[in-house]
Structure formats: C-alpha cells, structure tokens
C-alpha cells in the first residue's frame, strides 16, 4: 500500500513538473501572466479599501479579515488550478468523448484527468495569497505552514466541487456552462464575508455551495486556531473528495466513447 501511495505521489509530481516546464517554455508570457494575475487580484481589494474608509467594521469583520479572506480564497483557487487544472475541463471531455485516452491508461482515471492540466497564471494567485497572508498576519514558519495546509484543504474542496459539478455531464450531456456557473458561484461567495449573509444563506454556504470551507472557516482558524475547526475543515475536504470520486465513477459507467481519432498530448 505504501509503495502504491509513493507511486501515485511520483505520478502527480511528474505531471506537475511537466506542466510547469511546458509553461516555462515561453518564459516572457509566463511571467506576464503571473504578474497580471497578481495585479488583477490586488485590484479586487480596491473596493474593500474604499468601503473601509467609510465604515470601521462589517458585522465584526475588519479590513484585515477581508485580506485574510482573499488570501485563503485565492490560495485555494491556486491549489486547484496548479495541481488539479484538469478539473475545469471535465464536462467537455465527457461530452466530447475525450475520456478514452485516460481510460486506456493504467492509472486512476479521475486523478489522471485532474492533474493532466495546470494553469500557469495561477502562480500569480499563489504569489498573491502568500503576500497578502504575510502582510495581514503576524507570520512565523509554523503559521505559514498552517496557511499552506488551509489553502490546500480549500483547494481540495474546490476541486471536489468542480468534479461534482462537471460530472453532471454524464447525465445531462453538454452542461459545461452550468458547471462553470456553479464554480463561479463558489468562488464569488468565497470572496465576500459571511457576516453579510443571513443564517439560511450561511447554511447553504456551508453545505450546497461550500464557500464556508474554502475561505470563511480558514479565516476563523487563522484568527483563532482551534483543533475542532481545523479537524472540521480537513474532514469536510476528505468527505467531499470521496463523494466527488464516487459520483464521477458512478457517472463513468454511463460514459460512451466518442471513437475520436485524435492524438492526445495533453487532453
């Protein structure tokens, strides 16, 4: 079992490394994408800066909380896009019969699909998340490592949610737009403080659209660490990933090959 786990980690690392090398092939384009994404995220904070020049607190949330919220959400998104970039394209692969390539390989299909792509611009999101985290909190090595665990857990939640949303294509056919809108909803809610929402909306945000586990709970943990909160986050991330895996393989039984004659280099 240990050998199998080691082999899987090596497999993931090799894909990650190949994707990174591929992005670095055009170094100028890579750097400009990273820098622009960093600036892009920074500009998103502008609205909050203007708002907090007029108010002191938003139902207990200060500007510092907002900074941590953005650090957590953009860090989670970066983890998804860098490690599991294939999660954004599952719908298309299902609807167009492009899963054949992965089915023929002696590797876990879902994992292979997820790691087959990586978005270079997400390095900008990661750089932004780490910079904002270091600026908004009193950093130490332990806290920084803790932050990386939090954004990885958030990334797993986002990836699992993407797998669930895109797996709808097994039953609905072309539903990439619906999946993208669900992903958009998750990301959008993750970027606004939970204190502005009613109890019912919060219930939705901790269940159906799990933005609470992408950013709200990580912000609480960063503000005041409790083992209960940390465990809750990790258990939820694990549970959702198991559910996503179950639904994907359930749907895969309905998958029909596209009989496409294509050379599959990446997808």
């Amino acid at each position, binding site marked *: 079992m240990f050998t199998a786990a080691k082999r899987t980690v090596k497999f993931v690392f090799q894909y990650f490394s190949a994707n990174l090398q591929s992005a670095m092939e055009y170094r100028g*384009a890579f750097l*400009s994408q990273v820098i*622009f994404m960093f*600036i*892009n995220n920074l*500009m*998103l904070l*502008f*609205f909050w800066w*203007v*708002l907090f*020049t*007029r*108010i002191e607190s*938003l*139902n207990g949330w200060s500007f510092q909380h907002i900074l941590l919220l953005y650090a957590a959400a953009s860090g989670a998104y970066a983890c998804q896009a860098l490690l599991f970039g294939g999660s954004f394209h599952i719908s298309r692969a299902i609807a167009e019969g492009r899963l054949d390539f992965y089915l023929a390989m002696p590797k876990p299909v879902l994992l292979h699909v997820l790691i087959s792509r990586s978005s270079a611009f997400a390095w900008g999101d990661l750089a932004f998340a780490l910079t904002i985290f270091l600026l908004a909190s009193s950093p130490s090595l332990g806290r920084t490592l803790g932050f990386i665990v939090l954004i990885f857990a958030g990334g797993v939640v986002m990836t699992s949610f993407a797998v669930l949303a895109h797996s709808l294509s097994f039953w609905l056919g072309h539903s990439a*737009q619906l999946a993208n*809108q669900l992903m*958009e*909803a998750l990301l*959008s*809610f993750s970027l*606004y403080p939970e*204190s*502005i*929402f*009613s109890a019912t*909306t919060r219930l939705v945000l901790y269940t159906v659209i799990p933005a609470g586990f992408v950013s709200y709970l990580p912000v609480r943990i960063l503000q005041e660490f409790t083992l209960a909160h940390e465990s809750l986050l990790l258990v939820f991330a694990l549970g959702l990933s198991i559910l996503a895996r179950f639904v994907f393989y359930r749907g895969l039984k309905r998958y029909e090959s596209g009989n496409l004659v294509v050379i599959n280099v990446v997808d």
Partner: protein
Amino acid sequence: MQLARGGSVQKYLKVAEISLTNRVVYLADHFASSIFLILILFIFSQLWKTVLGTNAEIAGLDSTGMLWYMVFTEVIAVSTPASHSLVSEEVKSGDIAYRLVRPYSYTLYYFAVHCGEFLVRFITNLTIGAAFAYLIMGPLAVEWVHLGWVLLGFALSTAINFLVSFSLALVAFWLEDNRPFFWVLNKLIFILGGLFVPVEAYPEGLRRVSYLLPLRYSFSAPARLVVNFNYAFLWQMLAGQLVWVIILAVLVGAMFRKGVRQVHVHGG
C-alpha cells in the same frame, strides 16, 4: 477618413440588424447566462443592507439606490460583447485582408455588429437584473420624461466602450499578444468605471482621475443618472461623453490607418 468610409448608413443598420437577429436566436442562452448577474446582485444586496441599513447613504445613495446603481453598471458590463477578440484574431491571423476589400468601413462594420449584439444582451440582462432588484429591494422611482436623456447617455456609453475595446484590439497590429491590455482594462472598469460604487464615493484624488478618463462616462455616470437624475449631472456627463467619443474615434481612425499599412497579403 476611414471611420466614415463605406457609403450609406443603411448597410450598417442592416449589419446591426443581422447581428441582433443572430443573438435573438440564442435568447434562452442569454437568459441562462444571466445567472451570474443574479448571483452578484444577491451578494451586493446583502452587503448594502448590512452596511447601509435603512437610512445611511454612500455618495447620496441608500441601499436600494446602491443596488439599482449596480444593476445598471453590471448590465452594461455583462452586455458589452467581446467583438474586440474577433478583431484581434483577424488582425493577428491576417484574415483582416479579406474584410478590407469589402465595400464597407471595417470600424463601422464592427460597431454595427457590436450595437446589434449589445442591444439583445442589454434588454435580457436588464429584464432579469431589474426584476431581481425590484423583488429584493423594491422599485426605483424613474420619471419617464427623463427617459430620452437616459437612453442618449447609454447610447454614448456604448460608443465609448466599443471605441476603447476596438483601439486596444488594434494594438494587435504591433504586438502579438494584446490580451494583457484587456485584463488591465477589465480592472480599470472595476475601479475607474465605478462598477460597484459610484466614483463620487472615492477619495478626492482618485475621483478627479476618474472624471478625466473615459470609463466613468461609460459605466458609472449613466447608471447614476438613472438612479439619481439631475440636469446639472446630465450636462456634465453628456459633455464628457461627447469629448471622449471624439477623442477615441480620432485615435481609432489614426491607429487603423497606420496599422493597416503593416498588413502583408501573401495570397493563397
């Protein structure tokens, strides 16, 4: 001048009509894509209720006014078609050569396409956005006698948005990848266009900068005019819009003339 070349207005109206008809075919698709608009309006309705409660105001707008303001800025933003990406592709791929030999002005052709598509998107998005804002925050008091001025403001705003995007698309004549310019433009719309908050709420220095640039006249000002109409604001807005339409039209004309000289047709 290239911008005006190509004969009667009639053919551009026809192009706009074709573009409009093409979009009407996908009407259901447009309504489905408005889900994002509802999502963002929902979040902001909660935010403004929390921040402003029932009495407080920002830049003269209460929570209801703020949401309605955002309905209009967002509807302009999400309804603006990405015709600039077609132009960029044509310039980069050289397909522009096929368009140049046709009996119309390249710029006016795309302006007509842009207007036709914008109209369909604007009507569908506004219907959904306004219905949502009405249900969640209540009605917006609009005096119908002002409608003509408001429509004029929106028409000029559409022209500004087209000219800004088109001028950036023409950068493809000189640079292979002009996408970063659009990323920056999107963020500038967010800040200097006052997408979420009227620019009047900004600190003094930033407000002055936004008053000097075109984006405020294509997003914030027309939206604010609908929500809080007054004639002094209208004249100021129309003056700014006209000045920017002229400046940008001259710029686009000059860029096109200079850029098109660099096109090499190799046949085939």
